[in-house]
């Protein structure tokens, strides 16, 4: 049973508002955009993880716009890791605590090791190090906030940018009409499929906060490496008004453009199944990054999503 020996929280599952701790460990001081999805993810992650956590964050929006000297919002111990270094950083921290506790150099107690990186930091430049961390057997959780581009540097395509999206590296033009023509990499399933040591893999969304916080606790509670990818809409990069962040996050799940599941010791389980999936156009039409797409392009996306949902058992 996950977390049965865990003393950090009264319980792991967060089902109602009453289960959510009042305390905040990601407070005022960050300088992210209005409606920032990743910043909300950080708040929910910190709330769920609690004060006995060491948090390491790789370069990206959640470093540069989020963790400034003298105005940092982090009330738990925090450190910067290099853009491609999140896997290494958590592996190093977890090994340090493990060795020092075993050798009696520090007190034996539960310390959660949490690493956070963006989609570029996780799926591109940091993929090898995350893979190493997932093989290592270290006790740590890596979370990717997926805003589907290198947003911090001005919205460049990453390997998690969806097909058909505008970015500054994939601008739709007269010759190249579609924008990004690479298909989004399936990072969580890559990690689940390729790493026999990994104990827990999950996807989450900021628009489903109880599900998100429960998954963070499960990932931290499990003894061994864990990975979560959180869908985090980005008003600046996706070109939508900031008040729509939560709605777009929800629409992604309701259309099947994003799916919520967990893989616990190899067992796949959907954690949310939309009762009746909405057409993807409802999700796409709210975002300027898809404005150049034509009817057949949207039909193509719909077909891809339908196939994926069938495969995952959503339909």
């Amino acid at each position, binding site marked *: 049973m996950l977390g049965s020996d865990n003393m950090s929280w009264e319980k792991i599952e967060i089902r109602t508002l009453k289960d959510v701790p009042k305390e905040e460990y990601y407070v005022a001081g960050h300088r992210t955009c209005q409606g920032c999805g990743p910043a909300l993810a950080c708040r929910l992650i910190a709330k769920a993880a609690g*004060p*006995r*956590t*060491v948090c*390491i964050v790789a370069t990206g929006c959640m*470093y*540069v716009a989020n*963790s*400034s*000297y*003298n105005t*940092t919002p*982090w*009330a*738990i*111990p*925090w*450190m*910067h*890791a*290099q*853009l*491609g*270094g999140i*896997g*290494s*950083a*958590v*592996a*190093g*921290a977890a*090994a*340090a*605590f*493990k*060795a*020092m506790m*075993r*050798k009696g*150099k*520090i007190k034996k107690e539960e*310390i959660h090791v949490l690493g956070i990186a963006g989609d570029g930091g996780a799926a591109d430049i940091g993929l*090898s*190090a995350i*893979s*190493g961390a997932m093989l*290592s057997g270290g006790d740590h959780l890596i979370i990717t906030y997926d805003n589907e581009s290198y947003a911090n540097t001005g919205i460049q395509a990453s390997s998690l940018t969806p097909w058909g999206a505008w970015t500054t590296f994939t601008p739709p033009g007269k010759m190249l009409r579609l924008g990004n023509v690479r298909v989004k990499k399936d990072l969580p399933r890559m990690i689940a499929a390729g790493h026999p040591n990994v104990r827990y893999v999950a996807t989450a969304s900021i628009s489903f906060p109880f599900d998100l916080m429960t998954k963070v606790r499960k990932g931290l509670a499990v003894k061994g490496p864990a990975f979560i990818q959180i869908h985090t809409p980005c008003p600046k990069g996706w070109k939508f008004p900031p008040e729509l962040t939560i709605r777009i996050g929800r629409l992604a799940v309701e259309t099947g453009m994003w799916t919520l599941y967990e893989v616990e010791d190899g067992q796949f389980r959907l954690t949310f199944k939309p009762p009746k999936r909405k057409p993807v156009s409802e999700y796409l039409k709210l975002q300027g990054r898809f404005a150049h797409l034509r009817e057949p392009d949207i039909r193509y996306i719909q077909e891809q999503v339908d196939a994926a949902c069938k495969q995952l058992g959503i339909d």
Partner: protein
Amino acid sequence: MVRVITTGTVAIATAVKHADVDVISAYPIRPYTGVMNELARMIADGELDAEFIVCDSEHTQFEIAKHAAACGARVFTGSAGIGWAYAHEAIVVTPTDRVPVVAMVGNRALDDPGNFGVEHTDVLVARDLGWMMCWPENPQEAYDLTLMGYKIAENPNVLLPYIVNCDGNFITHVRFPVDLPDEELAREFLPPTPPPRPNILHPDKPISIAPHVDYYWGTEIRRQMDQAMKNAIEVTKRVHEEFNKIFGRGGPPFIEEINTKDADVAMIGVGGMTMVARAAVRELRQKGINIGFVKLRRFRPFATEEIREALRKFKVVAVLDNDFSFGSAHCGGILFQEIRSALYDLSERPIVVNYLIGLGGREITVDAMKRIGKEIYEISKTKEVKHIVKWVDVRE
């Protein structure tokens, strides 16, 4: 104490064991790998209790070492040549995060083309970043300088990472007699737990390490590192004194003078070439050439005062660089640039010439050193410098 016949890598691994290191991050590249093979064996045989992380790259190795050290663990890592180059992003941020990582570099010629030979340019690419750097002459010094490294790096007035360089093959792989102290004596010099410092990641005391600063604090952070490196000079002297007292060896901290008494001219260099120089100087002395050799034990921090004092008495100094700096002043080597600059404002200073020797791993021979000795002796008589910088044993 026990005297063994062993290599530089095993000597360093023994120092790491005596330091009771907690986390080791490993990735293979010749010629440093032997140190990790030995540490893995020690752990497997129950001689050392440490987490040994098999890494996916050198970048990961140095990121792991940095973050484990940030959590308060004592760490060890290392690399060589292009592996060290691959780790460079992590290497850049290790000193700026002020964590006392200790690493070994088995000096190796940088690619391309591939080359297993010794060259010091690999590590010297990082000379400006805040890593302390030393060069043992032999496996004995490799042990000594590694154990001292933890003590210097962890000093709260320093808190900078530390590199023990080893000439690839020559010191990493060749066996020499080494005196290894009992573990208890080593622990008397270096207790298993580092002294307390403020920048440790732990939930008991939440702090942020390396939040974004921009220009508001960037200058001051650089200045603090500058001060730490300056502090390292005094700390290194004290640590050497203590080491000498406990172990009865260890030599002076920065400069060792070999046969320099009444010498008119001298050569200066680092690392394993000193062994060759000892023989060359002895033979030249027998021929009536008053020459000595100055061994530079540490390159960072650069002990400007000590180096000036050591060199000012000579008429001519030849800097022997087993490294290059293409397009630099006079197109000379890296040591040459710094040593010449350090002597500039002396009222009477020696003529300083530069020999680029052993590049791409070519053997540094006694004959070559003798030729250099004769040339600089000639310069001391004629005061005529034909070449400020000269390549040794090169086919033009």
